[in-house]
């Protein structure tokens, strides 16, 4: 569970006005108690015992009330010049063709449509994910070797 994801959950708790928000998925657990209710903001994150679960676990964080409308992971950001590249399949993210090879792209690099950005391994098949826009890689959102779900944001690309 990344710091950004936890920040999003805190925003959610604040926005919806709940006193306490506890999210558990697999080995990840976040508990947020809001300051106005407890004189302190307490955040507990249980460390995942193995890496393979951490991303989908947090990515799948379900709303704790049908009334809440948390931002979906992979949602387009407000900034229209920033485009998110999302995973078209479920699988494992690889930033390079092999453990020894350099990454397909680095942050700050300019990419063109058709440029291979990463590989998603699914059922032993290596699926190359290509860029659909031209722009500069602003951030890489997934760690090498981490599992990703359908629609999960992989890269943010600045298009101007």
């Amino acid at each position, binding site marked *: 569970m990344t710091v950004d994801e936890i920040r999003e959950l805190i925003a959610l708790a604040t926005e919806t006005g709940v006193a306490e928000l506890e999210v558990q998925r697999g080995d990840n657990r976040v508990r947020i108690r809001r300051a106005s209710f407890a004189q302190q903001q307490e955040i507990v994150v249980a460390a995942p015992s193995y890496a393979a679960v951490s991303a989908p676990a947090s990515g*799948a964080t379900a709303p704790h009330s049908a009334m809440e409308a948390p931002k979906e992971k992979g949602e387009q950001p407000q900034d229209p010049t920033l485009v998110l590249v999302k995973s078209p*399949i479920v699988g494992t993210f690889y930033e390079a063709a092999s453990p020894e090879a350099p990454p397909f792209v680095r942050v700050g690099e300019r990419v063109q449509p058709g440029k291979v950005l990463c590989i998603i391994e699914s059922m032993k098949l290596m699926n190359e994910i290509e860029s659909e826009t031209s722009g500069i890689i602003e951030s890489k959102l997934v760690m090498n070797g981490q599992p990703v*779900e359908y629609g999960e944001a992989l890269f943010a690309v600045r298009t101007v």
Partner: protein
Amino acid sequence: MPSVRFKKILIANRGEIAVRVICACKDLGIQTVAVYSEADRYSSHVRFADQAICIGPAKSARSYLDIPSIISAAEITGVDAIHPGYGFLSENATFAEVCEASQIKFIGPGPEVIRMMGVKERARAFMRELGVPILPGSPGVLTSPEEGLELAAKVGYPVILKASAGGGGRGMRIVNGPGELPSLFLQAQHEAGSAFSSPDVYLEKYIGAPRHIEFQILADEHGNVEILGERECSVQRRHQKLLEESPSPAVTDAQRAEISAVLRNAIAQAGYTNAGTVEFLMDEAGKLYFIEVNARVQVEHPVTEFVTGIDIVKSQIRIAQGETLSEILPGPVELRGHSIECRINAENPETFVPSRAYTDCVIPPFYDSLVAKLITYGSDRAEAIQRMQRALSMFIVEGIHTSIPMQQRILADPDFQAGNFDTNFIKRFLPGPK
């Protein structure tokens, strides 16, 4: 084969059956992984599972029916087994095979058994061999009106002539007596020939007003089989069941014992494992004829759970873990009391177009329209009916139309209350010409 203990199960389904499987896993202390399409992000099965993985867009073909996505989700979450629920991939032999190849236990029968049960002709031939009663008719193509008359005299009128190559009513003739047979045979042959470029016709006993009866089976992986009584599913609209009950008001104790004994042997001979349902038609005289096997859990399984006290979904998981039925079942199977299920569907009662709720809760239009299952239990059928009527009268659904008004009319019907109905029964509750 020593039994294992699953740590984590992926549920390759959505809606109520996904939540039902999650409940069974929670009861067994097993972690759960839900998979969901983008349309189901805020569904209950996502909410109640320990983990949830988005596997694709709303369209089923690219999510709940997409084998690679589901297997990938299983692999990245490290599950021991997959429960397929009903519908979607539950009777897909290829999916069961891919699970096997991926070292993930498929909670259901083996791929070969699923495949055989999927080919209706093979399933019927197999069952007939083992003494399960089959709808009588010609073994193959009917060669002459004389052969037809001879056969029809044996199985009894009415009979039906069907095009061997066909379907959809073309080349089909119902024959009520021997006088009509020769001319209808020629008509059927002619129509079959022009519709399917093969004039081959066969003959089968015709049941105009059948009841739909199904037997619940449980089979472990050590050759043991138990029959958990039957369900009455005759209240159907266009083959969609609206109301089911157990036991059937039409099945006698002797008949139940007889069919159970025959099935126990046949299912064991088939190498069938896990839960399943054996479907029968009942003719007007009360005789049962095998139709097909549904190699999965059914929507209506709770009525059997209520009258037997056996948790069918927990049993499925424990069977898949390699446990024996004697370990799983609390004792000998006994039916007690009566149970009824109403499927509460979202719909417009006038036109049967599924409704959608537009406020906080959304019923995605991509999947089926089942919004709830309401199950009652009573010490006898009358008490179960009374409680269902009361529960429906107190059932509150806002923002959508549901099937509840139709089910209330069915439950209030004197013929229904007397147990006197068949698959045509629903017609009197439908709008328009009967």
